[in-house]
C-alpha cells in the first residue's frame, strides 16, 4: 500500500515538474484563467450602458424636457440626436445610429395636464432582441418613475398599484455577480480536462507511456498520479478566480470556503474523470484536443452559466443532468452569493460524486482493456 502511494506521489511530482519547469507552461496555467475572469467580468454583462437613443420631441414642453432629463440622467442612455421629422426614425434605426427612438407627441403636456393620460411611442431595434428588451424595460421604469413624480407634483391621485421590487443576493442585479462565480467552474473545467487528457495522450504519442507501463505502476496508480496534479492545478486556478472576484470586482463572498472547496473537489474529480476518459480513447494529442474542444461547447451552453436551465426545453434539461459544470456553477453561485451550506447543496453534490465515480471507473476499465 505504501509502495503504491509512493509511486503515485512520484508520478504526481513528475507531472507537476513537467508542467511547472517550463516558464511558458507555468504562465499558461495561471495567467489565462485570471485574464479570462477579468475579461468576462467586464465584457460578459447584460447590464446596459451608453445606449444610444434619439428623440423626436414634437411637444417641446416642460413635461417633455423633464421626461428626457430623466432618461439622460439615468446613466444608461445617451441621446445621439434630436430628430425633426417622423421619416428620420427609420433612417436612424436602419443605420444602427440609435437603438431606441422615443417619440413625444405634440399634445403630450396638454394630455397630461388634462388628466386623460398621455401616450408615448418607443421604437426599438429588435434585431438584437435581448438588448432591445432590456433597454425597453429600463425606459418603462424611467417613464413609470416620471409618471409617479409628475402626478405627485401636480396633485393627481397616485396609481392604483405600485410595485416595489428588491433583488436579494444581488441588490443591483449586476450581471457580474452572477457571471464571475460561475466562471470558477467553467475555467477550471477547461483547464483540468485538457491538462489530464493531454498528459496521457502526450505520453502515448511520445512513447513514454510504454516505458511507464513496464514499471511496477498499476493502471489505477497511473490514473491517480495523473489526476492529483490536475486537480491541484484546478483548485489553484479556482482560488485565483475567487481572488479576482473578491478583490478586483469586490463581489462579497457570503458562504464558507470549506463548503466551496468540498464542492469543487467533487467537481474536479468529475472533470479529471472526463479528461482521463478522453485520454483513454484518444490515441494522439490532436485527438485529445479535438475531443475536449467538442465537449467544451455543450458543457458551457448546457450549464446555466449564461442562460437559465429552466427556460430550456425539457428534453435538453434532462441532458444537463450529466453535465458536471451545471452542478459546479450552481454550487459556486449558491455558496458565493447566498452562503448555502453543504446540506442545501446535496442535490448538486451527489450527482457530481456519481459522475466522478462513473467516469473514473469507465476510464480505468478502458485503460486496462486497451492494452490487450
Amino acid at each position, binding site marked *: 500500500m505504501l*509502495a503504491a502511494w*509512493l509511486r503515485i*506521489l*512520484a508520478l504526481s511530482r513528475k507531472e507537476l*515538474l513537467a508542467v511547472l519547469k517550463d516558464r511558458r507552461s507555468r504562465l499558461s496555467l495561471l495567467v489565462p484563467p485570471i485574464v479570462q475572469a477579468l475579461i468576462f467580468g467586464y465584457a460578459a454583462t447584460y447590464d446596459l450602458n451608453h445606449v444610444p437613443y434619439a428623440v423626436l420631441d414634437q411637444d417641446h414642453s416642460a413635461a417633455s424636457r423633464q421626461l428626457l432629463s430623466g432618461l439622460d440622467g439615468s446613466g444608461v442612455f445617451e441621446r445621439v440626436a434630436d430628430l425633426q421629422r417622423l421619416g428620420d426614425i427609420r433612417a436612424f434605426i436602419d443605420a444602427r445610429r440609435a437603438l431606441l427612438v422615443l417619440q413625444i407627441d405634440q399634445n403630450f403636456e396638454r394630455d397630461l395636464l388634462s388628466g386623460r393620460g398621455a401616450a408615448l411611442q418607443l421604437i426599438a431595434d429588435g434585431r438584437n432582441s435581448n438588448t432591445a428588451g432590456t433597454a425597453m424595460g429600463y425606459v418603462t421604469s424611467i417613464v413609470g418613475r416620471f409618471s409617479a413624480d409628475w402626478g405627485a407634483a401636480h396633485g393627481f391621485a397616485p396609481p392604483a398599484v405600485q410595485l416595489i421590487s428588491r433583488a436579494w443576493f444581488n441588490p443591483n442585479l449586476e450581471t457580474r455577480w452572477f457571471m464571475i462565480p460561475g466562471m470558477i467552474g467553467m475555467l477550471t473545467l477547461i483547464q483540468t480536462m485538457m491538462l489530464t487528457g493531454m498528459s496521457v495522450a502526450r505520453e502515448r504519442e511520445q512513447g513514454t507511456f510504454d516505458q511507464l*507501463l*513496464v*514499471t511496477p505502476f498499476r493502471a489505477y496508480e497511473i490514473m491517480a498520479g495523473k489526476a492529483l496534479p490536475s486537480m491541484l492545478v484546478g483548485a489553484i486556478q479556482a482560488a485565483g478566480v475567487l481572488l479576482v472576484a473578491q478583490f478586483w470586482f469586490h463581489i462579497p463572498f457570503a458562504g464558507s470556503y470549506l463548503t466551496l472547496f468540498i464542492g469543487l473537489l467533487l467537481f474536479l474529480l468529475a472533470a479529471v474523470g472526463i479528461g482521463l476518459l478522453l485520454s483513454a480513447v484518444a490515441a494522439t494529442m490532436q485527438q485529445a484536443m479535438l475531443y475536449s474542444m467538442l465537449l467544451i461547447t455543450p458543457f458551457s451552453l448546457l450549464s446555466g452559466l449564461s442562460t437559465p436551465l429552466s427556460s430550456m426545453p425539457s428534453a435538453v434539461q434532462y441532458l444537463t443532468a450529466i453535465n458536471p459544470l451545471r452542478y459546479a456553477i450552481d454550487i459556486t453561485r449558491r455558496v458565493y452569493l447566498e452562503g448555502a451550506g453543504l446540506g442545501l447543496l446535496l442535490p448538486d453534490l451527489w450527482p457530481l460524486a456519481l459522475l466522478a465515480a462513473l467516469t473514473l471507473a469507465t476510464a480505468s476499465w478502458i485503460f486496462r482493456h486497451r492494452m490487450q
Partner: protein
Amino acid sequence: MNASAGEPPALLAQSLRKSFRRAEQAAPVAALDGVSLRAHHGELTALVGPDGAGKTTLMRLAAGLLRADGGTLQVLGIDVAGEPQQVQDRISYMPQRFGLYEDLSVAENLDLYADLHGVGADERAERYPALMAMTALAPFRTRLAGQLSGGMKQKLGLACTLVRSPQLLLLDEPTVGVDPLSRRELWDIVRRLVAEQGLTVLLSTAYLDEAERCGRVILLHQGQVLFEGAPQQVADRAMGRSFTAVPAPGQPARMLQARLLDQPDIIDAVPDGARVRFVRAAAAPAGDDSLRNLDAAAVPPRFEDGFMLLLRSHAEGGRSASISVSRPIAHTREAVVSVQQLVRRFGAFVAVDRITFDVRRGEIFGLLGPNGAGKTTTFRMLCGLLAPSDGALFVAGADVRSAPASARARLGYVAQKFSLYGPLSVQENLEFFASAYGLRGDGKRERIAWALRQFELGAQARTTSAQLPAGFQQRLAMAAALLHEPEILFLDEPTSGADPLARRAFWRRITALAEQGVTVIVTTHFMQEAEYCDRVAIMDAGQVLAQGSPAEVRELARTDATPEPSMEDAFIAVVEQARARSRAAGSVPGEQHTQAAPR
C-alpha cells in the same frame, strides 16, 4: 571523374562556420568550426563522423536552409548564402526524416512532390516508370505511405526527392533504421544513379562499410574536417596495424574482444565473423612478441580500422565504458525467457506467427530481422505491453501479464526511440524511474549516483533530457532501465542511428552486464553486432527462420562461392530463401523453419 580545370566543384566550402545557441548554455556550440571541403561532379561523396560532428548542419547549409556564420559555401558554382533559390532549383535534398504524408498513398505522395516542384505531365510520364522500377514500389502504388515498412518509406522518400532530375543530390543518413536487405537495395539505387546517370551525390552515413564504397569520404569530427579523400587512403593509415585473432573454442568472441580492448596499445577491437579484429596504435616493431600468446594474424586494413585510428587520435571515450552491477546474478543457465508457439494477430494480419525460442540466464540473445518482421511486436509481448493472441510465454518464470505488477521490477526495457521525459532533466528522470521501481532514501541516492557515474552523465545531470544529443539520450535510457538492477534487459534497436564510437561503448556495457548475469535480449539492424550475441534468431514475416549461435547461423550461408560468410550474408541468404519459398508456396510463409542444431 574529377572536374576539368575550369569547372567549379559541385560543392566547395571554405572556412565555413556555423554555431547554435542552446537555451541554457551561455556560449554557442560550434557545429561547423572552419570547415573547408569539396565534392566533385559525377562522384559519390560520403560524410562520416560521430554524432554531433556537423554532418546535418553541412547538408542544411548546402541546401540553403541555414545561413552560415562565416566562410563561404558554393554549390554548383553558386554562392548559397547569396542565391539560395538558385541553388534549390538545381539540387534535391532528402533530410533524415523525409516529409512523407502518411495518409496519402505512394502515388499521391509522388504526385504531390511533382506538383511542388512543378514537374509537367510529359516529364512525369517519363520519370515515374523509371522511379517505380528503380525503387520496386510499383506494386504498392495505392498503399498509404504510413503503412510502408521503414525501408520502403526511405525508397519512396528517395523517389519523391528524384521526381525532377537534380544536378546535386543531398542525402542525410538515408539508411538509418533500415534493415540490411532494404539497405542493400537503397544503396544499389544510389550507386546506379551515380554510375549510369552521372549524378553527383553527397550523403552522410553512420555505416562505415557504406562510406568505404564511396568515391570520396569526408570525415567530420566536432565541426572540423579530420580527413578528406579516397576511402582507401583512410584504410591505408592502418596498414600493418590490423589483425584478427581467433577466440578460444567455445568462448564468445566478445570475451576476447574485451581482453584485447584492455590492452593499452590496442585502439579498437570488434567481433568480425568468427574472429576478433583489432587495430594497434602503432605498427608492431620488429621482434615484437606481445601478440604471441594470441592466435593473431595480420590482415589488410579496411576503412573502419583507419577511421577508428583517426578518431582515436582526436577523441577518447567508448573504450573504458564498462559497467558493474552491485549484485551479480549467478549464471545458472536455466531459461529465464521462454516463448512457445507465440502468435499475435492484428485483425487478419499475423505480426508474429508461432515463434518459439528460449533465452538462458546471462545470455545475450539477438533478434535480427528486416523492418516489419515482428521483432518489436515480440518485444512488446515479452514486456507485457501487448497480449499474445495465442501461445505461451514466460519471463523470469512468470507470464508478465498475469503476474503481479511487482514482477515487472525484474525487467528493464529500452524502447526503440527515446522514451524518457524530455522536459525533465537527467537527474529528474532518474529520480522518477527510481521511485517508480520502489527505490527510496539512501538506496535511491546510491543508485542514481551509480547511474550517473557508470553512464558518464554526471556533467549533464541538470540538463534537460530533450536537449541532449542522441548518444547521451541513449545512455540515459539505459541508465534508467538499469536503476532497479533488472535480471532481464530488453533493448529494442538500441544502436540505430548511433555512431561507431557510441555503438562500441554500448556493446562494452552490454557484454559487461551479461558477464555479471544479466540476461540481455536485443534487436539490431547492424549485422556485425549480432556477433556480440551468444545466440541469435533471424525473423521475417513474423516467423523465426533460423536460430543458434552466430557461428551456427553463419554456417547456413556457407557455399563454395562464399566460404566464410559474414552475418550479413547469412541474414540475407536466410531471409531471401524463406521469401522465395513462400512465393513458391503462393501464400503466407509456410511451416519450414531453418533451425540450426542447438548446442
